[in-house]
């Protein structure tokens, strides 16, 4: 039976999982990611261990990576709520980190900032098809004049795309033209841009030493880790119906939703129709490196009503001072409270809004963005949940706004989401089996 090796080269750990063609896990090992020397050192160390477990060499290797900070991008659009937002969603959906989103004409400060941030890829959008051309051409010219060459995915008004690309290419930018992220007003079409970003990720983003050599061993292109998670969730949603996935990390909290784009009868939908499979990342909501902003966002009554409030406050201060620290035994409740706040804030930001307005014809509800109320399942991902004594407490959300109303709660108990996503395209049956083994109902 064939053995697939699935590698997740993270910023701190390189995690390898070997599965057979049915999706049974036959080996697992991890080693510190060796990003400073050559990432192959860490991969080889883990690989040797996995091969000892399986007793033989694997047949094919698939990999995703978030090493060296992952894929960092900047998005430019015209109106921030329209093509700016479409560009942002495309970048997030490709599994990249959004450094900045710019709207309207790039000014000198913006260009200086782009030069300083040096994104891996810049997504240039603006104008609907047949709509505004000026912004795309002027921003292309400004970038060409003021910024050193970068890989650019150009996903704006198709009537200006070629000309915009030529302006950039003249000064040495490499440009990939793809479909407009918003071909018509309020209609998103981000899959072509996502695909182009994932392709460029491989051909241009060889930041970590050894990554290029590693990618030559792969059976499919290396993809950003969040793109693998997105693919795994998509596979699950095809089977289980509308679902929400929350990945709580030390620095960020990622939310993925599948569905929630229908407009309930009697409501009026406004603004962009969000993508069916949508990813958002909260860079200021995390359990360690972003703890101070999480605590700030959660508000003053975060610890209100806590049974050991003073002890918790002291412990929280220690965690804030030292992000590497583990919560002291007996105070796990604090971690639950923090993680619960992270879930609530991240999901609230992912969800859309519902506003009741009073018209002469009676009250009318205006819906914008994602409606998560009918999500059947909420799946928790991440060490915080797996190691928590109370994952239910973390994932349970109050019924308010557009948050899930009565979801089944589940846990990715073996932290298998990214690995399974790597197999979603080539061996969906095996991927499903891996997910089924890992998902635990709460």
């Amino acid at each position, binding site marked *: 039976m064939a053995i697939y090796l699935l590698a997740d080269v993270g910023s701190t750990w390189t995690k390898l999982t070997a599965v057979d063609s049915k999706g049974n896990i036959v080996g697992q090992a991890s080693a510190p990611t060796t990003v400073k020397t050559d990432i192959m050192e860490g991969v080889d160390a883990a690989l040797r261990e996995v091969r000892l477990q399986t007793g033989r060499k694997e047949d094919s290797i698939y990999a995703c990576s978030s090493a060296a900070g992952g894929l960092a991008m900047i998005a430019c659009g015209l109106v921030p709520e329209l093509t700016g937002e479409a560009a942002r969603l495309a970048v997030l959906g490709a599994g990249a980190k959004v450094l900045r989103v710019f709207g309207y004409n790039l000014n000198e400060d913006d260009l200086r900032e782009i030069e300083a941030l040096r994104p891996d890829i810049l997504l240039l959008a603006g104008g609907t098809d047949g*709509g505004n051309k000026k912004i795309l051409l002027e921003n292309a010219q400004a970038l060409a004049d003021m910024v050193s060459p970068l890989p650019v995915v150009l996903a704006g008004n198709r009537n200006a795309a070629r000309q915009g690309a030529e302006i950039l290419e003249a000064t040495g930018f490499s440009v990939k033209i793809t479909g407009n992220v918003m071909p018509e007003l309020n209609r998103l079409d981000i899959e072509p841009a996502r695909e182009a970003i994932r392709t460029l990720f491989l051909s241009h983003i060889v930041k970590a030493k050894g990554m290029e050599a590693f990618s030559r061993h792969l059976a499919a292109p290396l993809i950003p880790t969040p793109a693998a998670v997105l693919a795994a969730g998509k596979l699950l949603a095809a089977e289980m119906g509308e679902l929400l996935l929350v990945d709580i990390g030390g620095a960020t909290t990622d939310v993925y939703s599948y569905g929630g784009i229908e407009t309930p009868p009697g409501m009026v939908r*406004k603004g962009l129709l969000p993508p069916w499979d949508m990813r958002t990342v909260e860079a200021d909501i995390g359990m360690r490196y972003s703890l101070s902003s999480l605590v700030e966002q959660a508000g003053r009554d975060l610890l209100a009503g806590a049974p050991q409030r003073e002890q918790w406050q002291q412990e929280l201060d220690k965690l804030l001072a030292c992000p590497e620290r583990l919560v002291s035994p007996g105070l796990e409740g604090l971690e639950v409270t923090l993680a619960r706040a992270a879930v609530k804030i991240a999901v609230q930001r992912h969800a859309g809004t519902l506003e009741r307005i009073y018209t002469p014809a009676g009250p009318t509800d205006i819906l914008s963005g994602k409606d998560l109320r009918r999500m059947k399942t909420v799946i928790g991902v991440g060490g915080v949940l797996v190691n928590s004594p109370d994952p239910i407490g973390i994932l349970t959300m109050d019924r308010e706004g557009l948050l899930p109303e009565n979801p089944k709660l589940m846990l990715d108990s073996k932290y298998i989401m990214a690995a399974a996503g790597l197999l979603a395209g080539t061996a969906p049956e095996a991927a499903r089996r891996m997910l089924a083994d890992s998902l635990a109902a709460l």
Partner: protein
Amino acid sequence: MATIVLGVIGSDVHAIGNKILEYAFTEAGFKVVNLGVLTTKKEFVQAAIETDARAILVSSLYGHGEIDCRGLREMCIEAGIGDILLYVGGNLVVGKQEWEPVRDKFLAMGFDRVFPPATMPDEAIALLKQDLGVS
């Protein structure tokens, strides 16, 4: 093909006339970006920017048109599309009022054309073609 932005402004949910206008202007050869009912001034302006529209056609059927439409021209100027054509039509004010003062009020607000109740689409289409210099 000229792009136009169409919508019903404010807290107004009258959808039928809006659909008829979308149909009529599309048939007449315009690319219609229809924002539908309950449209804010900001949405009209943003849509016009992104689609490079040459005219914004505002409907108001519930009598609050005067309050809802005030400031639309100024917002366009502020957003860099101050030259765009602005049309408005419908039951713009409460009750039966004399037409001329109502029209003048909206012209003073910066609208290029103001249409009384029961105007047929053809009339507005002919004027729009004339104003845009298209046939």
